[in-house]
């Protein structure tokens, strides 16, 4: 790849130097957008105790991506309907039967991963790109991903009027339903938004780590928030700043981007946790 930096002396370069590389510019735009999106939706994921849903959806995304790679189609377009479908199936199973959502997730994410592995075994080409989707790579981000993330930010902003209803159902589903909130329909919309965000995050963060992107910033914000509003805003702040810090760490220390961002998030979470016990 022509815009890949040479490894020598990277540590000595000033921050501004990193921004000269188009791949780093793209990664930063994607990282900031993901920091905003994943943390915004993560506030609902954490408060609804749906952390396992992030794991389920990210593994489902991997299954969809594998299918896209096998078919030679841009994986995003296959992974989105696949992951949204799994998300809706999880919601349907937990709403319409004796099984709880964690059981539904446990079944469906294992099936999705198994499907992904089987599909990849049919692929004749080198499968390194598939492993990029597992662990994430700063170099894998393309202009297409930037466009997708910017569109998702605009879409989420357009859906901001749903925040009060989602928050209400997060607080008390029965009360929200009694007040005329279409809770089940809103839940499907929320799961759809989370699923698309997860798919969009996989290239940079990796399917294995993307669930943490949903959980850690929101959990950090939860430690000190006195309202769900401040929890949401603080999570977005934590998600954005740790994404930027993690990407620079990835650039200078040559760490995988997803892992670098998650470690930054963990560092901030640790500090917030320690402060909460003071």
């Amino acid at each position, binding site marked *: 790849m022509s815009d890949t930096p040479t490894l020598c002396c990277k540590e000595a370069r000033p921050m501004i130097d990193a921004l000269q590389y188009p791949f780093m510019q793209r990664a930063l735009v994607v990282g900031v957008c993901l920091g905003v999106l994943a943390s915004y939706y993560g506030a609902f994921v954490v*408060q*609804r105790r749906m952390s396992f849903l992030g794991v389920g959806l990210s593994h489902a995304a991997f299954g969809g991506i594998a299918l896209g790679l096998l078919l030679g189609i841009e994986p995003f377009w296959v992974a989105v309907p696949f992951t949204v479908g799994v998300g809706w199936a999880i919601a349907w199973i937990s709403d319409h039967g004796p099984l709880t959502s964690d059981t539904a997730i446990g079944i469906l994410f294992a099936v999705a991963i198994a499907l992904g592995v089987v599909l990849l075994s049919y692929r004749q080409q080198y499968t390194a790109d598939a492993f990029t989707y597992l662990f994430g790579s700063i170099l894998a981000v393309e202009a297409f991903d930037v466009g997708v993330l910017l569109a998702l930010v605009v879409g989420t902003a357009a859906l901001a009027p749903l*925040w*009060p*209803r989602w*928050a*209400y159902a*997060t*607080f*008390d*589903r*029965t*009360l929200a*339903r*009694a*007040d*005329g*909130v279409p809770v089940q329909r809103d839940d499907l919309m929320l799961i759809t938004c989370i699923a698309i965000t997860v798919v969009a995050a996989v290239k940079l963060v990796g399917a294995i780590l993307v669930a943490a992107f949903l959980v850690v910033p929101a959990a950090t914000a*939860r430690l000190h*928030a*006195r*309202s*769900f*509003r*401040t*929890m949401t805003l603080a999570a977005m702040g934590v998600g954005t700043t740790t994404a930027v810090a993690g990407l620079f760490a990835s650039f200078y220390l040559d760490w995988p981007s997803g892992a670098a961002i998650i470690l930054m998030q963990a560092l901030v979470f640790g500090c917030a946790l320690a402060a909460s016990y003071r």
Partner: protein
Amino acid sequence: MARAPVIQVNRLSVNRGQRRVIEDVSFDVAAAAFVAIVGPNGAGKTTLLHTLLGLVEPSDGTVRVLDHPPGRDAKRIGYVPQVKTLDRTFPAEVLDLVCSGLTHAWPFWRTPSATERAEAALETVGAADLATAMLSDLSGGELQRVYLARCLVHEPELLLLDEPATGVDATGAADLYELLDRYQADHGATIVMVTHDWNAAYHHATDVLLLDGRCISYGPPQKALGADPLREAFGHVGHAHAMLQGGPPHD
């Protein structure tokens, strides 16, 4: 001309899974009535209230609330649930919850006018000092008062209350029923309250619906809570009926 009933229930049956919880229940609630729904555990009291709210679909029969099918006019109804299904870890102040009664959604910002109305509602239920407390720090009785403030803040014309005095001490419960009487008198509101407190039903309600899956009796408390209907619903009357006829202990 007589006002149309606020609630019309005609031959209502409700199934929960394979089990029939409510069987062929019919009754009307007149405007400005105070109806207490009493009955043994598992009698279908909460299910009936949920049906009036549109949370549960009737298996048979028809229900109309404020001249609409249930669930169509939530803004004219105030509701206090029995089992608080809220997330106690949800980060929120009491004022946030009370303001949600105004907007029927969780407030992102609290406007000054909404805050003012919420504070007034808290004052009404004697919980003004809780305004900025975190919900997670409230006791069961305090939470009940806050839910009642939330229910009253938008001045609804129909109150659906599911055991509103649960967790509230005896003095607090007496205050609560007096508050409901006052609200009804001031606003001409209709109140439907599920309760296990026969004394409250006997002395505050204009009508009592004694339920045990089916309607055992419906009418003025002295008639609906007579010895025969109580024996039919509960299998025995015990000392409760005599206590009712003799007046409430706090009298």
